[in-house]
């Protein structure tokens, strides 16, 4: 029985009898093709994505780099967060990801600098932003960028530090988020 080029939809040949089976075959094949396309549609318009929030009262000691702890899932499409087990990370799957993080330390007297880092597997920084001199005491710092993830065990964490006088600072408005942009490779 001949089939179409892309989705191999079956249709009767010139000398075949057109009967109920002919229509059933075509309907069945269309159904299978639509199932395949629908799976792609879901991936395309609802990619793996999560955002977790540091809405606790985490203290940040002067000149000490601290890993942000997260208590709330803002959203989690894809099971990237498991805050009951690891409250500092999002675990990603192989792909190209956009990752963002931010925090607002407050409670210091004067701020010399504030910084934020995003690390892969707790070791490698792939984002690191250091703010310029702040005259105020409530700087906000955030960053976002691209990450190539090659292993299903890879995870990202956010770290922050400040220096100056006063404190310890309290972290508010902290977040870490990741959205998968495409497959790898």
């Amino acid at each position, binding site marked *: 029985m001949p089939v179409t080029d892309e989705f191999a939809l079956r*249709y009767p040949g010139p000398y075949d009898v057109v009967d109920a089976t002919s229509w059933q075959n075509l309907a069945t094949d269309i159904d299978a093709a639509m199932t395949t396309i629908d799976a792609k549609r879901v991936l395309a318009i609802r990619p793996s994505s999560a955002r977790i929030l540091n809405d606790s009262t985490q203290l940040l000691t002067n000149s000490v780099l601290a890993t942000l702890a997260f208590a709330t899932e803002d959203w989690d499409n894809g099971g990237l967060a498991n805050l009951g087990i690891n409250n500092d990370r999002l675990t990603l799957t192989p792909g190209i990801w956009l990752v963002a993080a931010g925090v607002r330390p407050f409670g210091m007297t004067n701020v010399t600098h504030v910084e934020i880092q995003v690390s892969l597997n707790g070791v490698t920084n792939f984002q690191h932003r250091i703010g310029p001199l702040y005259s105020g005491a409530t700087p906000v710092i955030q960053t976002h960028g*691209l990450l190539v993830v090659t292993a299903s065990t890879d995870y990202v964490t956010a770290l922050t530090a400040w220096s100056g006088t006063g404190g310890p600072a309290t972290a508010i408005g902290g977040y870490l988020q990741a959205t998968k942009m495409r497959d790898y490779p």
Partner: protein
Amino acid sequence: MEYTSSQSLPYPEPEDFANGSQQLKMLAEAIDLRLSILDLGYDAILARPVVLKTVTPGVQTISASINTTVNIPNTTFQSSEFTAQSSSTSIDFSSYPAGIWMGGVYLGTNPVGAVNTGNHRNVTLRVVDRRIQPGTGVSVYEELWDESGCQSNTGGDFTTFSQTFEIHDPDNAFIQMRLHHGNVSSALSVTAGFVWALYIGELAN
């Protein structure tokens, strides 16, 4: 055979049933074509073009007060269906689609921190899209920039920055990372860094 519906799917009229196999073939092929268009559209989203190029740590030093292009000779990741990147200083869009892109930079340098008052490290995402302005014949250059660094003795050795931008003329478009710093006591050594570009979607027009 008539055609109906917005998707032009054919269906047989009563007198056509004498040649039923032909009508069914035409219907199957028309559906196959429409499904293929849908499928390609989702494939384009799931495999959107992307390029990421990195520095070679320790190779490049950059003197003070000179706006210098940071070398990015290593292609870490690139969509396989496009021409390989050949420039050691740029991401080249010549085989990529025009459209809205997102791009960013990451740069680390030594020595850490400032050594003189007034030091700074400004990292630029330079976007060059040499399209010609209608009626003027003038090439348009677009530069997005970020000021990051320090004016004190703490930090300032890393920066991250990203932005969205348009590419109208891929054959004449590229992006670069540039550094300008004020560390007059010594040249800065590039310790880590990369530049990336990710296709977001088509231009409005």
